[in-house]
């Protein structure tokens, strides 16, 4: 096999893996959008906050340490313990559920019946609040996130492909883990929303609030549920991205990468988020590999957005989104 083709295959595989990570972030958006029609601007910051919390708990950091030290003149930074990864993840998930409950009680509850744009604005406020709150709580330094996920090149794939083609593929172990976790998450969420009682209620709330109330669905419960799930998805995304590039403010910017994914896949479709993520992941890599060298490279920075723009022009509902027909 020609080396060019092998190289293209490797690039495609890596693109798929990267795409899964994009899809993971996009998934959080889709969940909240489906259940409440809100575009949750804070989703990226939620991922950052979740990752910060996870690292904080794991390393036994004292929350609000700087604040406490500044006020009381003390010198506390860490508890004398470290928490095992698994327990830390469970605790961080708990914090995200608590966060969902607080958002429902103090933000959404007061905005029932308001136009979507108001709710959207509220999530922007929420994003900035959480950004600052996360900093005060856990400090703003760059943190290393290590929950024991395998990292570095996968030796088996390298060896196998080398034996077959005489060219070893470089696939990162972390990407493989991320792909598996994301697939499981998507399968679970799809089954949940299609076949469970709560899933049916969730889709009902997404369509019509009054009708949902009239069949006995509690909006509060559904909203807390859906923000909890989105918080959990944010935690998973935070872990994967955090393990890759450290936990720092730029983590919240991955939300920007999720936008083109959503435009492609459609805002209301869980499978859409996955396919959109994969298309962008692969497209980005292949474009950089084939066209990139001709136009000076660094095409990853804009490729996704241009693709999204094209979709907006020709198929604004995305690949899987519901076509909106307004009856006049």
């Amino acid at each position: 096999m020609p080396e060019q083709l092998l190289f293209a295959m490797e690039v495609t595989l890596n693109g798929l893996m990267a795409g899964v990570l994009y899809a993971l972030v996009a998934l959080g958006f889709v969940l909240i959008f489906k259940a409440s029609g809100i575009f949750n601007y804070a989703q990226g910051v939620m991922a950052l906050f979740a990752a910060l919390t996870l690292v904080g708990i794991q390393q036994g950091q004292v929350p609000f340490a700087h604040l406490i030290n500044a006020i009381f003149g003390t010198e506390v930074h860490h508890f004398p313990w470290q928490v095992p990864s698994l327990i830390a993840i469970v605790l961080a998930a708990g914090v995200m559920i608590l966060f969902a409950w607080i958002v429902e009680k103090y933000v959404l509850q007061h905005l029932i019946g308001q136009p979507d744009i108001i709710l959207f604005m509220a999530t922007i406020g929420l994003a900035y609040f959480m950004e600052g709150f996360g900093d005060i709580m856990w400090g703003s330094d760059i943190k290393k996130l290590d929950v024991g996920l395998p990292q570095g090149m996968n030796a088996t794939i390298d060896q196998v492909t080398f034996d077959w083609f005489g060219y070893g593929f470089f696939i990162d172990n972390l990407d493989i883990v991320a792909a598996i976790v994301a697939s499981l998450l998507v399968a679970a969420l799809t089954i949940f929303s299609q076949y469970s009682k709560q899933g049916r209620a969730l889709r009902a709330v997404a369509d019509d609030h009054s009708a949902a109330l009239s069949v006995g669905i509690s909006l509060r419960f559904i909203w807390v549920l859906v923000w909890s799930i989105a918080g959990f998805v944010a935690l998973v995304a935070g872990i994967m991205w955090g393990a890759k590039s450290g936990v720092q403010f730029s983590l919240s910017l991955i939300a920007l990468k999720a936008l083109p994914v959503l435009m492609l896949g459609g805002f209301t479709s869980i499978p859409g988020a996955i396919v959109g993520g994969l298309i962008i992941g692969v497209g980005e890599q292949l474009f950089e590999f084939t066209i990139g060298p001709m136009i000076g490279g660094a095409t990853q920075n804009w490729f996704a957005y241009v693709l999204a723009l094209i979709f907006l022009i020709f198929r604004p509902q995305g690949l899987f989104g519901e076509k909106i027909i307004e009856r006049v």
Partner: protein
Amino acid sequence: MTTTTDMNADSYVTADGRTIGPVVMDMKNITLRFGGVVAIKDISFDIREGEIRAIIGPNGAGKSSMLNVISGFYKPQEGEVWFRGEKRPPMKPYQVARQGLARTFQNIALFDGMTVLDNIMTGRLNHMKANLLQQAIWKGKAEREEIANREICEKVIDFLEIQHIRKTPVGRLPYGLKKRVELARALAAQPSLLLLDEPMAGMNVEEKEDMSRFILDMNDEFGTTIALIEHDMGVVMDLSDRVVVMDYGKKIGDGTPDEVRNNQDVIDAYLGVSHD
């Protein structure tokens, strides 16, 4: 059991052989204000088990407000709501629904993204008790429940003659069928009181006849207690056992269709009164 046709008795039998039981829903001195506007002023009436009760009145009389008070969407400033012999504390609409009260809306509130069958299945949500874990395993309780609930929904679908659109997304249906699907969802909940907000609004003559037939059959076959709002007097008079007439938020008449028809206040409200 003694049968009587005396309407003042605890339970009586109508001319067409249906049994009307004791009071299910009792509204006592309800007053509802929006700021300075009084939508409902000191209205009392009751709904008895098994009857078709109509609330009529000209546009803006406060009929829909009344229905929203019954179903918990509005909270009256004064007055009491008694349901099945107990005073109802202030409740959220979903809690009222869980007590066994189903309703339809004037401007159709359906789940457009879901199929007809799924829409009707949401009417059964309150009857499903299996927890998430049982649903995940999908054996035993969860499966039995789904099958039992599905059967009830299929019965309702047959009854309302919408078999041919079971799998169609509701958003694609014409107006008349949407109204029928909404009715099906409410009926699937097997409510002890069914509230219909202008079930015939915007329909043509044929659709109105169908809807009237469904309402009568529902009441007759399942013994469903129905309270409905209409401003088309003709339809209501043929359907209902008793009628409440509202005008400008006040009750101006209450009784059998015949009594109401001959009530001077009602005639004035509907036909206008000359001021000479």
